[in-house]
């Protein structure tokens, strides 16, 4: 019998560690020792950025993959958290920034992001399925235009620069190694948190609502409340991603959560795959690699170096057309090919 795939385990929690294949341990170890041989660029720009975008896309994956709700407002939630850290904490815009200590401004950022996400969720879940995309896109764009016009609080077009992480425990958290471990920690934390929650009553209820909302309400679940609660939960990985993103580039401006980045998060999650929390990170890694090396790739393809959007758009279309489950889906297909029973030609895993 083939090993049980994580998405198909039962609520009976078996020993978590016994079932993890050796390859996963190796990969974990690789991520931990990476700073010993990788360059600062690789740690900070490639992996740090992938972890951050992965976390924000993870919050979309949680809503879309488990709840069937394609919220385009997750990048907006991240951007809002980044703004709150810049406004309440320290930045180069001393007129606005309050210089509150980190233990006030970070919880404030998480709280405000969670409240915002809850309100957005409450607005979006009042209508069914497909409207969610429209409503959340409208909310995301409204946030973008609002931050661009508002100078009192958001400092308008230019936003905030000089937003640095606090010097906690005497560590400079913007140093590539420290930032790498910081973002790795939070990415791993939210990866496991989402994996864990997916098997909890809340997570299972969400998946039930995705498959059949009417039946869930017939079973005694409050469908609307679960959906809204999912938005609230998903706000946290997005908000932490947003704070890290702000620290990484030391700035936040309307463009950080503009319509382009909002769509990019969806693209990342879909390219990676919405079936499993690892998907967003795979998608984010591919996106970051493409973005960092797009010039070389495009020149190799005989196009101008600046056609990154074309490349990512076409890649996205290819995935949506041929593998709706993203790169993860492709991987599963390839693996299943080798697992077919030679006599009956069916998958061994499936009864």
């Amino acid at each position, binding site marked *: 019998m083939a090993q049980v795939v994580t998405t198909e385990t039962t609520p009976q929690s078996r020993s978590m560690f016994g079932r993890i294949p050796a390859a996963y341990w190796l990969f974990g170890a690789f991520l931990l020792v990476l700073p010993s041989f990788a360059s600062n660029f690789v740690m900070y720009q490639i992996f740090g950025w992938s972890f951050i975008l992965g976390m924000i896309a993870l919050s979309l994956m949680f809503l879309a993959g488990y709840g069937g709700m394609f919220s385009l407002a997750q990048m907006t939630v991240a951007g809002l958290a980044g703004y709150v850290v810049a406004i309440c904490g320290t930045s180069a815009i001393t007129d606005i920034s309050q210089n509150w200590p980190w233990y006030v401004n970070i919880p404030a950022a998480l709280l405000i992001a969670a409240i915002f996400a809850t309100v957005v969720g409450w607005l979006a879940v009042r*209508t069914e399925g*497909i409207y969610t995309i429209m409503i959340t896109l409208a909310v995301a764009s409204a946030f973008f235009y609002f931050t661009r016009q508002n100078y009192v609080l958001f400092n308008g077009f230019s936003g905030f620069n000089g937003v640095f992480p606090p010097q906690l425990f005497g560590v400079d958290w913007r140093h590539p190694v420290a930032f790498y471990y910081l973002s790795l920690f939070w990415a791993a934390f939210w990866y496991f948190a989402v994996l864990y929650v997916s098997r909890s009553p809340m997570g299972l209820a969400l998946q039930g609502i995705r498959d059949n909302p009417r039946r869930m309400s017939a079973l005694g679940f409050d469908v609307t409340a679960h959906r809204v609660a999912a938005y609230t939960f998903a706000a946290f990985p997005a908000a932490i991603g947003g704070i890290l993103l702000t620290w990484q580039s030391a700035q936040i401006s309307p463009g950080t959560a503009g319509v382009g980045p909002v769509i990019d998060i969806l*693209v990342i999650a879909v390219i990676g795959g919405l079936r499993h929390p690892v998907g967003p990170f795979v998608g984010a890694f591919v996106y970051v690699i493409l973005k960092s090396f797009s010039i070389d790739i495009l020149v190799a393809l005989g196009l101008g170096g600046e056609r990154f959007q074309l490349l990512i758009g*076409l890649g996205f279309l290819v995935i949506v*057309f041929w593998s709706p489950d993203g790169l993860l889906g492709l991987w599963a297909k390839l693996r299943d090919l080798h697992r077919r029973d030679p006599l009956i030609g069916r998958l061994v895993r499936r009864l």
Partner: protein
Amino acid sequence: MRRFARLHPWWSVWIAIATLVLLYLTFAIWPPWLIGLIGKKKLFLNSLFNGITLGSLYFLIASGFTLIFGLMRNVNLAHGSLYMMGGYIGYLIGDWTGYWLLAFPVAFMVVGLFGVILQYFVFRRMEGEDIRQTLVTIGISIVLADIMLWAFGGDFYNISPPSWLSGPIETIFVTGVKRSSGDLIYLKYPLVRLAIFAASLAIGLGMWLAINRTRIGMLIRAGVDDRDILSASGIRVQFVFVAVFAFGAGLAGMAGVVGGTFQSIAPGEDIRFLLASLVVVIVGGMGSIPGAALGAVIIGIAEQFGSVYFPTYAVVVTFLIMVLVLAFRPTGLLGRN
């Protein structure tokens, strides 16, 4: 109307009061206290008219969007790209031939044809998969935006209207009285905007007639109500779908020429107008053409008044309207429950 009044007495009273106030503000000569309160009448009339003409542009875009959505449950997030494509095509045609009027049918046909291709080769293959179709439209909009950026660069393109349409004309609306002579001062307003308003009105009426009086319109209405009816009616559903998608896309293309004439075409406009049609359709009611008209006028006016009277928070006004509608009537003002 009588039925509406019976069902919603308070709403009717409010609507009646608002109409009377609007009529007074439009036609009366403003007393000084009113000018002291909200500024000059000329400013007010200009924002009102700009709002209505902007609304008519929004209507041209959003009506196609809402029709496609209502019939095929396809949230076409590439609609803004179709608008922009129409604008660039209109610019090229105007530039080459010098005939502004020619830009409209050409943009309509080229973008409509593009719509046919999309519907026939792409969306037909994923019928009933709402989310996947929407994702595809996102992909298409990313690709189209970059191709257009590639071809036209980041410059602003302006389509210039013909000379017989340029310049302002004097309207019948009084803005004030000349203190010296006691003569009435009439509002001057750009003719091209009035022409566009009239054209949108004509297109809107035409669509309404087509949908309510013709056989294919009947089918579309039936399909919006219940898609199973369409397939049961024996008509070739695909034909209706392709026709509607082409028409909606063509309208967006034509709107691009309009937008390129009284504003301009540049990268980023696709997203701006996509957002506008989303908000219009959310406010007016998804899948409803009268809803798109109502939503377009409300959003157009709100945007113009917002930018004149509360410049910092113009977007917030639009957004607040959307949030209020969603909170109290999630299906939109004229949407079905």
